[in-house]
C-alpha cells in the first residue's frame, strides 16, 4: 500500500470478512491482484476506484459469483469460499446489484418472496416483516404495490429490503446511486448508516466522492486491480484518495469533471460566448411521442437551441429523454411535432438523412445504437462514412485505418490500434470513439449527446467535456441530455427539466438553482 497512512482508528473490532492477497484473473488479464481488505462489523466501508479498477470483480468475489484464483478470504474467522451467490446468501452476505432484478408485473411482496419460500406463500406474514424493516431502517414501501408502478428510487428500496429481510451480516451495494435523485441519494446513504449502526458491515462501491465524505467510515482505493490506498479518515484525506485513484494527477483534472465527482463545489465553467448574435440552429416544435399502448412518453416538447449554445435536458431517467433522443436520431417516428435544423425540415427523416444534414448523435445506449462491437475500431469510427473509403465496392482498409489513427490521436482513443476489435476497448475509449465519429462529421452543425459520460472515469469525462465545449465554440448547437445534474450545471448554458415527458421548467445553468432544478426533476413546478 502506498500513499496514505491509515489513521489510528479505535481498537479494531474482529473483522467480519477479511481478504488477504486475493487475486482474480480472467484469461491473462488480472482483474484483481493481491488485494487485501478487512470489513468490520458496524462500519460503512467504501470501495473507490475508476472504471475497470476491479470494484465489481471484488464484489462478485465476496458474493460468490466468481471464485478467487489466489489468496484467502476469511469470514467470521473461518476460511470462506462461497460456491455461488446462493451459498453467500445462506452465510449472511447480501448484495444489491447495479441493475435491478425485479419482476415488473408482480407486487413488492411477491418479489421479496421470490426464491425464498416453497409451497404456500405467506404474503401477510411477509408484509408484516416488510413493515417492520421499513420502520427500522426508514424504507417506506407499500407491500402490495406493483413494481412497474414504482419510481426508480422505490424499486431500489425493494432491492434493499429484499436483502435486509434475510438479516445479512454483510451488505454489499454496487454503485447504487447512479440512477437516483439527489434526495433519494441522501436517503440511501442514511439507510447505509442505520444498517451499519445495527452492527452489520456495509460495503458501498462508488466513484462519487461526495458520498464518501458523507457516509464512509473507511475507504479502500482500487486502481488497476490493486489496493493503492486506504484511509480511516476519508473526509479528511479525500484529496490524497483521489490522487491515489487517478494516479496522482489532480491538477490535470478538469474542474468540471472534479465537480461531478463531488471533489469541488459546482462552479459554472461555461465557454467563450459565440461572437455572433443568436442564430437558431435546432428547432423542436411540439414533439409528442405516444407508444404502442397509447401512453404519452413525450408531451409537446418545444425547444430551440442556438448556434454556439449548449442546452441541457435534465431529468430522472425514463421521463422522456430516450424518446426525445431517439426521435432526433431518426430511430423513432414522433406522433406529432416538427424538427428543423436551420431551414431544413428533419421531421421524420431517416438516420442517414439526419447525419447528412449535419446532426451528430451520441446515443445514450452506446452498445445498442452507437457502435458495432464485433468489428474494428477504425470501422466504428467511420461507420457512417465508409463510402468515403470504398472504390468499386472494395473497402480500402489501409486508408481507413490511417485516417482512424489520426482521429484516435486527436481524441485520445486508447486501444491496441485502429484494427483492434471494438469490444476490446474500455467503455471510456468506446465512448470517445463514438464521440469522435459524430463530432467530426464534415458539415456538423448540431450535436445531440445523451448521457455522454455515463460509466466513464475522470479522465474520459474531462475529455468528453472539452470536445463538447470545443464543438460549441465553433458555433455548433449542442443538446446535452443527462441525468447527472452536476454535469449539466457545469457544462450547459441553459437547462430544461423533463418530467413525465413534459418540460417542467427551464432556467440558466446556475449552480445556485440546483435545489429548484432538483425539485422540478421530482415533478414540482417552481
Amino acid at each position: 500500500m502506498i500513499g496514505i497512512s491509515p489513521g489510528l482508528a479505535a481498537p479494531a473490532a474482529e473483522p467480519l470478512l477479511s481478504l488477504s492477497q486475493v487475486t482474480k484473473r480472467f484469461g491473462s488479464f488480472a482483474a484483481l491482484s493481491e488485494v487485501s481488505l478487512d470489513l468490520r462489523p458496524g462500519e460503512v466501508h467504501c470501495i473507490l476506484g475508476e472504471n475497470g479498477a476491479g470494484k465489481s470483480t471484488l464484489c462478485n468475489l465476496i458474493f460468490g459469483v466468481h471464485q478467487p484464483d489466489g489468496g484467502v478470504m476469511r469470514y467470521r474467522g473461518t476460511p470462506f469460499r462461497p460456491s455461488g451467490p446462493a451459498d453467500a446468501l445462506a452465510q449472511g452476505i447480501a448484495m444489491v446489484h447495479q441493475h435491478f432484478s425485479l419482476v415488473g408485473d408482480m407486487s413488492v411482496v411477491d418479489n421479496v418472496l421470490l426464491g425464498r419460500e416453497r409451497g404456500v406463500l405467506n404474503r401477510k406474514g411477509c408484509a408484516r416483516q416488510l413493515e417492520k424493516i421499513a420502520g427500522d431502517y426508514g424504507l417506506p414501501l407499500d407491500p402490495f404495490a406493483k413494481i412497474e408502478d414504482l419510481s426508480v428510487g422505490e424499486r431500489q428500496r425493494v432491492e434493499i429490503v429484499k436483502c435486509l429481510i434475510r438479516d445479512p451480516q454483510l451488505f454489499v451495494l454496487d454503485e447504487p446511486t447512479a440512477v437516483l435523485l439527489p434526495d433519494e441519494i441522501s436517503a440511501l446513504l442514511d439507510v447505509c448508516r442505520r444498517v451499519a449502526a445495527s452492527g452489520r458491515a456495509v460495503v458501498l462501491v462508488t466513484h462519487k466522492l461526495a458520498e464518501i465524505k458523507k457516509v464512509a467510515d473507511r475507504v479502500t482505493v482500487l486502481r488497476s486491480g490493486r489496493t493503492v490506498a486506504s484511509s480511516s479518515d476519508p473526509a479528511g484525506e479525500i484529496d490524497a484518495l483521489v490522487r491515489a485513484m487517478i494516479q496522482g494527477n489532480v491538477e490535470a483534472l478538469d474542474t468540471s469533471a472534479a465537480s461531478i465527482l463531488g471533489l469541488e463545489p459546482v462552479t459554472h465553467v461555461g465557454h467563450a460566448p459565440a461572437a455572433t448574435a443568436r442564430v437558431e440552429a435546432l428547432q423542436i416544435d411540439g414533439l409528442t411521442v405516444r407508444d404502442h399502448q397509447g401512453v404519452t412518453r413525450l408531451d409537446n416538447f418545444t425547444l430551440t437551441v442556438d448556434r454556439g449554445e449548449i442546452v441541457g435536458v435534465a431529468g430522472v431517467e425514463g421521463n422522456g429523454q430516450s424518446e426525445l433522443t431517439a426521435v432526433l436520431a431518426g430511430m423513432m417516428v414522433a406522433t406529432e411535432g416538427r424538427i428543423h435544423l436551420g431551414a431544413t425540415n428533419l421531421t421524420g427523416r431517416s438516420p442517414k438523412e439526419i447525419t447528412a444534414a449535419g446532426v451528430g448523435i451520441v446515443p445514450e445506449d452506446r452498445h445498442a445504437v452507437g457502435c458495432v462491437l464485433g468489428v474494428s475500431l477504425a470501422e466504428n469510427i467511420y461507420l457512417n462514412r465508409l463510402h468515403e473509403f470504398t472504390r468499386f465496392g472494395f473497402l480500402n482498409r489501409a486508408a481507413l485505418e490511417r485516417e482512424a489513427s489520426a482521429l484516435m490521436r486527436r481524441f485520445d482513443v486508447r486501444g491496441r490500434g485502429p484494427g483492434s476489435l471494438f469490444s476490446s476497448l474500455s467503455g471510456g475509449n468506446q465512448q470517445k470513439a463514438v464521440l469522435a465519429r459524430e463530432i467530426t462529421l464534415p458539415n456538423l452543425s448540431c450535436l445531440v449527446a445523451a448521457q455522454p459520460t455515463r460509466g466513464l472515469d475522470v479522465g474520459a469525462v474531462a475529455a468528453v467535456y472539452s470536445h463538447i465545449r470545443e464543438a460549441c465554440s465553433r458555433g455548433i448547437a449542442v443538446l446535452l441530455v443527462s441525468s447527472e445534474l452536476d454535469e449539466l450545471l457545469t457544462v450547459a448554458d441553459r437547462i430544461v427539466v423533463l418530467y413525465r415527458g413534459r418540460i417542467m421548467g427551464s432556467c440558466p445553468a446556475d449552480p445556485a438553482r440546483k435545489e429548484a432544478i432538483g425539485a422540478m426533476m421530482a415533478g414540482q413546478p417552481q
Partner: protein
Amino acid sequence: MTAANQGRPLPAAPRFSLRPALLVPVLAVAFAAGVGLLLIAMIGVSVPKAIAAFVEGAFGSPFALAASLNRSSVFALVGFGFVLANRANLTNVGGEGQIAVGGIAATAVALYGHVSGLPLGLAFILPTLAAVIAGALWGGFAAVLKVKSGTNEVISTLLLSFIGIWLLYWSVQSPLLLRKPMTSSATLPESLEIPEATQLPLLTGDYSFPVHIGLPLTLVLAIVVGVILSRTILGFRLRVVGLNPVAANRAGISYAKTVIFALSTAGAFGGLAGALMLLGEQYTLKDGFSSGYGFDGLVAGLLSRGSIPGVIAASLLFGFMRSGGINMEMVAAVPTALVAVIQGLIVITLAGAALFIEKWEGQ
C-alpha cells in the same frame, strides 16, 4: 485453391489456428468412420467388403470420382449461400426448395424456351440463369416477409422448401406442366430429357469422366464470395447488420436492403445448384429430384462456421461420402438407414470437434 489462400485470411474465419483446426476434424471423421464400421460388422456385413464398396463408389473409377465432385459442387454452392446469409445473422434453411424451383425453371427453359439453337453457350446459360433467378425469388420472398412483418426466416425458408418440393412434384405429375407426353399408362411421371445443347459441357468431353463446368464455376464463386465477405463494403454491411442491426440503421445502412440481398443471394446459389444437378447430371426432372441435397448443403454451411474453405472441405467430404454410401448400399448390401446413421455420426462428431476447438483455443 480457395479464397482464403488469396492473401489475407477471411476476417471471421480464423477463430482458431491451423493445427488443431485441421487435426481435430480429421480425428473426428476417423472416429465416426470407426464407429460406423463397427456397426457394419455388428449387422454381419463383411467390413473389408463394405470398405471396398465405399472406396469404389467414392473414387474407385474416373466416373465415380466425377460423380463425387459434381455432388460436392452442389453442396458447396448451397453452403456458400448459407455462409453469405449467415454473415448477416440470417439462417437460410431453404436450400432444398431453392434447388427444386431452380430445377423446375432450368427444365422449363431448356425444354420449352427455344434455347437449344442459340450460339455461344446461351443454350445452357439461359436455363441456368432462369434457375438462379427462380432461386433468388424463392429466397427473396422469405426476406420480404422478414422485412415487412418480421417473419423468422428459419420458418419461412423451411416452409417455402416444402412448397418448392411439392411444386416440383406437381410439375412432373401434370401433363399441362412439365410431364412428358403420356404415350402409355406406364409413362413415368417425369419430364422429357433436355436437348443435348442445353446440357452443361463436360470438362474433358468424355463421358467416362463426366465432370461438368459446374466444378470450375463453383471454385470461381468460392473466390468471389470469399472476396465479397472479406474485402468489400457489401460484406462489411452484411456483417454489421448481422452484429447490430440498430447501430447499422443509425449509421445509414439499410436493414431491408441488406436482408433482401443476403437471402436472395443465398436463394440464387440454391437455384444454381439445382441447375447444375439438372443440366449437368440428371437431364430429366423427376419427383425427388432434390433428394436432400439442400439439407446436406445446409449442414456443410453450418459445419464450416462461416469459412469458405470450410464449406469446400465439408462439401467434398459429403460428396464423396454420399457416392461411397450409395455404392456400399448397392454392392455390399449395407442398409441405407445405416449409411445415414454413419453420416449423422460424422456430422455430430465434427460439430462437437468445433466446440472442442473453441474451448481449447479460448484458454
